């Protein structure tokens, strides 16, 4: 079904879905911490808007609840938590060096094509007008995972994780008009707890490593510790950006 044949609400849903995908790409390429957090908040906002639009278009009032939940969690609470944390840990001006940014973006594009390919086989199971956005939701999820795979900073990891969750939530909204409310509440609670746990974690990481670079985590392993004495002295290893 071509887009011109759809109603205005469905068109708007598709538009915002595309914008959410766009924010995923922005996050992939964004090296600085603060803009990364803000972009994540923007993505949350777009998802909340999509939920509201879907609620109006499909007359599923319970979707308003998930929209409100998304808004409080992903636009206000989690970004605020991360923001506070970054300021407290004095890393609001941090920027990590992204290796091969072009290659990364091309990989992102390849992932979008791949998710389209994957979604083709399930797309006709859904009869909804917005079913084409399933591919986008899968893509957001995969891009979140890609973000986690390639970035070093722990904040980016958290953002990637949350973004993955956003993708799943988005898939639920557009393919079946949302999960059962209880599931959604549970997931939301999980996410919140995860965010707080990550926060606590960060403090300890910063304490024991002096950085939030997850590339350094292999130093935790006792099996192949190269120079335990030097590390214990708290000397930052070369190549550590922070």
């Amino acid at each position: 079904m071509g887009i011109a044949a759809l109603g205005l609400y469905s068109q708007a849903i598709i538009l915002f879905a595309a914008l959410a995908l766009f924010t995923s790409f922005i996050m992939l390429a964004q090296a600085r911490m603060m803009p990364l957090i803000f972009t994540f908040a923007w993505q949350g906002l777009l998802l909340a808007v999509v939920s509201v639009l879907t609620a109006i278009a499909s007359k599923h009032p319970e979707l308003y609840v998930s929209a409100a939940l998304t808004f409080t969690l992903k636009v206000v609470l989690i970004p605020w938590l991360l923001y506070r944390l970054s300021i407290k840990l004095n890393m609001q001006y941090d920027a990590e060096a992204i290796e091969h940014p072009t290659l990364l973006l091309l990989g992102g594009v390849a992932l979008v094509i791949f998710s389209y390919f994957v979604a083709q086989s399930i797309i006709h199971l859904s009869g909804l007008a917005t079913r084409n956005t399933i591919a986008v939701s899968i893509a957001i999820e995969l891009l979140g995972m890609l973000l986690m795979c390639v970035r070093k900073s722990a904040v980016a990891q958290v953002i990637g994780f949350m973004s993955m969750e956003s993708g799943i939530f988005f898939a639920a909204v557009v393919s079946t008009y949302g999960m059962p409310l209880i599931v959604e509440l549970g997931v939301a609670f999980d996410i919140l707890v995860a965010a707080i746990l990550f926060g606590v974690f960060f403090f300890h990481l910063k304490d024991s490593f002096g950085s939030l670079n997850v590339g350094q985590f292999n130093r935790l392993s006792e099996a192949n510790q190269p120079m335990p004495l030097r590390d214990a002295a708290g000397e930052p290893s070369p190549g550590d950006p922070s």
Partner: protein
Amino acid sequence: MDRELTAWALALAQALLFIAAAPLLAGWLQRVKCHMQNRDAPAVWQPYRNLAKLLRKQMLLAENASWLFRAVPYIVFGAVLLAAAVVPLFAVHLPSAAIADMIVLVAFFALARFFTALAGLDIGTAFGGMGASREMMVAALAEPAMLMAVFTLSMTASTTNLSVATAYMLQAGLVLRPSFLFALLALAMVAVAETSRVPVDNPATHLELTMLHEAMILEYGGRHLALIEWASQIKLMIYSVLIIDFFFPWGIATDFSAMALAVGVIAVTAKLMLLAVVLVVWETVLAKMRLFRVPQFLGFALMLSLLAMLTHVVLETG
């Protein structure tokens, strides 16, 4: 037959109007920019005066200039003229659009650029080579981004004919297409790069740090320079009209009645004036980028156009 003749006559009139109005757009742009930056503004007619002055001047040629150097201004002007002839300015369904489609249009610009770059190398100065080298680098990134954006539009309208595509956008009415949003952004970024505006290039300076386009045409003077300047003004206008045709076509004449044509002319004038204001704001708030930031800028445009294409295929069809 009679109708066909009218159509061709209108097409010719449109092309001539296009060429004649291009300096006016540049003058308007300059004026708005001066106002925005609290400077005394020249009259909007100033570009015409400059062109007339240059056309009258005696030619100076560098010692080493070959025949190619003297032929380039005409080739550049001819290519841009052809490009202007096929873009619908105030009316669609004109037969001239069949001469060249969107891809050929991009190729006309490439032709003009190719010869300008060669002219830059012809004298054998360091600046000329520098300009040619940089311009070709920028073009190598801008051209695929532009074509990709254009492909998105042409796949939506299932045509690459400019007139037919514009007519399609017009009758489709308002459809919220994400692909168009991305394509518009990409096209705008490419247009900025290709017409040598801030932040990619600054046409007002002659410093080796900032010159791109200007470095290639440093050695030109007299009527050669007039033709090249005029061509670049037409080029700016073509990009603006393209953006208007694809994304805001409302008002353009679909039949050849005097009323419709008048509305078409007024609509396009108003839209061009508005677009110029947007461009001025953009140029005023942004600073010129370092040369090696330009690839990132254009890479972003390329990514946007890729995304436009993908969202078109993924979300808007099937």
